[in-house]
């Protein structure tokens, strides 16, 4: 397979996953902003939405103050934000078009139709409920692309590169949520304090489709330790780092087997998975949740670069 084809498949998936994540974060922020909280706290909410999306710097370069309308515009559809949802879908479609022969007809149809529809939307004229429908639609698109890929793609290197993109992006996003919100999780052993903190975490867990899962797994009220455990170490939880790294390793192993060759990417991914498997959440808190998340984000970036060097150039 051409390196460029693999590269486009990988980024196609990453951008679709990122669009999905941004839609979820925006939904959570909108939900939180409707709670009765102080104005500064509300501003913090929107600022942290920008921080979890990793685009605070881009935002402050354009605007001097954080306001709900600006953040929504910036994250959802601003053309000047290189990773707004709109731009993510545009870049995903561009990558898909680049390699449309490597996608199945169903996947191409989904992303191309989505892009055509996106061009018809009047973003500036959207009210709150239209925005809610838009975010819902974005999540649906990513589900359809994910599902059509799962159902229709040949299980060969094209599929594995596409999957790698999803899980690497997802791992990155999960780590970012925890990194930005960790302060709400401290101290670790009490129940999440107060109605607002509870709402905050409930909204975030709901955003990553994990609220019900939390109750199924732990059968108790929200506790910082448990929340971190669920999102970091619980391999059964599809958005957890452990689960993402399981999938990253599996896909990299499939590539190594097909090509008859292991490389740095496989070794690095395995060592990260092992670390996630062998650590207990209490240790993570002892040595610092923030530090742990920062390490994971840095390692993630390194793994991305190593995959790039090994296969994509």
């Amino acid at each position, binding site marked *: *397979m*051409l*390196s*460029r*084809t*693999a590269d486009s498949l990988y980024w196609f998936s990453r951008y679709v996953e990122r669009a999905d994540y941004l839609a979820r974060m925006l939904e959570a922020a909108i939900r939180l902003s409707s709670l009765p909280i102080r104005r500064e706290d509300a501003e913090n909410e929107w600022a942290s939405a920008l921080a979890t999306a990793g685009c605070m710097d881009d935002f402050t370069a354009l605007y001097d103050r954080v306001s709900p309308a600006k953040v929504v515009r910036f994250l959802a559809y601003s053309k000047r934000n290189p990773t707004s949802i709109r731009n993510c879908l545009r870049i995903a479609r*561009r990558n898909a*078009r*680049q390699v*449309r*022969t490597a996608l199945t007809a169903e996947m*191409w*149809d989904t992303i*191309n*139709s989505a892009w*055509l529809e996106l061009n018809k939307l009047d973003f500036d004229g959207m009210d709150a409920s239209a925005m809610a429908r838009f975010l819902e639609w974005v999540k649906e698109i990513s589900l359809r692309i994910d599902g059509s890929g799962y159902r229709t793609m040949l299980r060969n*290197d094209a599929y594995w*590169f596409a999957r790698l993109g999803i899980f690497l992006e997802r791992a990155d996003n999960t780590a970012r949520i925890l990194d930005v919100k960790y302060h709400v999780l401290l101290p670790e052993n009490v129940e999440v304090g107060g109605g607002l903190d509870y709402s905050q975490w409930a909204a975030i867990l709901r955003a990553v489709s994990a609220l019900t899962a939390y109750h199924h797994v732990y059968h108790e009220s929200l506790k910082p330790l448990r929340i971190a455990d669920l999102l970091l170490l619980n391999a059964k939880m599809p958005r957890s780092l452990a689960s993402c790294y399981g999938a990253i390793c599996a896909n990299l192993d499939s*590539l190594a087997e097909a*090509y008859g*060759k292991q490389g740095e990417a496989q070794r690095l991914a395995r060592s990260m998975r092992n670390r996630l498997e062998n650590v207990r959440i209490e240790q993570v808190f002892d040595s610092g949740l923030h530090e742990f998340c920062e390490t994971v984000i840095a390692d993630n970036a390194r793994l991305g670069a190593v995959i790039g060097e090994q*296969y*994509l*150039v």
Partner: protein
Amino acid sequence: MSLDEMNAEDGSVRRPYARVADWLTTVSPEQMERRRVEAELFYRRGGITFAVYGDAQGEERIIPYDIIPRILSTQEWSKLAAGLEQRVKALNAYLRDIYGPQEILKAGIVPPDLVWRNPAFRPEMCGVEAPHGVYIHIGGIDIVRVDADDFYVLEDNARTPSGVSYMLGGREISIRLMPELFRSHRVAPIENYPNELLATLRSVAPRGATGEPTIALLTPGQYNSAFYEHSFLADAMGVELVEGYDLFVRDDVAYMRTTEGPKRVDVIYRRIDDDFIDPLVFRPDSALGVSGLYGAYAAGNVTIANAMGTGAADDKVIYSYVPDFVRFYLGEKPILKNVQTWRCREADDLRYVLDHLAELVVKEVHGSGGYGMLVGPHATKEERTNFAERLKAHPDNYVAQPTLALSTCPTFVSNGVAPRHVDLRPFVLTGANGVRIVPGGLTRVALREGSLVVNSSQGGGTKDTWVIEC
């Protein structure tokens, strides 16, 4: 009065169109419109688009598609096919000659300066042997009809002719949207085009290539107007779609960069222009090509289809000599006719052209896409006067032809069905083992009433072309 391919002058319906004429009486304008919309949706959703350069609005546009098929009988087709094969053989022979022994210059048939001063002539190709002697692997010969008996060649496209995906897309639509009509005609199939193309490309692999030849399609990338076609053909043939960056040359051997390391490439079906193929030899600022690719070709390690320098055979002056090529190289009588052409570089011709500007179409020798030409009968006096000045200043740049009464076909337009002018681009494949042509080709139709310009960049549309027994 031009030939209408459905309605004969005496009011009867020409035989090939018997069933279509019946069918047209049974479908309502609403049904027609619905099919047209469905066809458009098929193109739009499939991303079967093209781009018009210099058009900021339409990054991707679709070519209008007319659902009423254009029909040729097998008798008409077999004559046309024989003529196409003959013509492409002669064009290949000409290129073999001018990049080799140059017999035709010695024989005094073509004036040498037409070869040497032709910007599409590539001196780098002189003395380089084309693998299996083939230069034009894929030729698009534009054909028009002016009467019921003869086919005229309007233009030879020997560089990187495009449009075949529209030919195949149109067929797909016919089968989906008009299943009954299609079935009742027993139309000769064309779906095998990608297979024939693949067989052609495989046949011209370098003789030294061992085992299965590796083939790649080289595209300038997704912003090229024909990118859809490139990706479609690569997919249909099961070969890699590569950009310049994906290839590299080491020790005169071409490789692709793959996830498993370098892989040797034997045949490159390139859809980029000569100028961009190799920055070391042609345009040094080309970012689309591959450094060293010319060297790999000259060393006989990779086949490039079409070969470099084929443009020397398809400009509008050389066109006027092609019937001579048929006689000179093949010793045959040309089957297809040429449109009468005045070469403005010759004094007598120039005088005639200047005297008859109002009746003639004057074209730039190296122009294409319907740009930079004067359509005498449609031009104002002032336009003609200005053009005459240009002609006198640079007569070498121009040829002139009579305005042809192109044939018309029934076409769905806003107020029903009306005749519109058409041409035909069949695709002629030449491999080491012979010539292959799928029956039919791309019919282009000028959708504006009375218009003779069928180019997609200027508002032309396409039709499916059916070759049927009748």
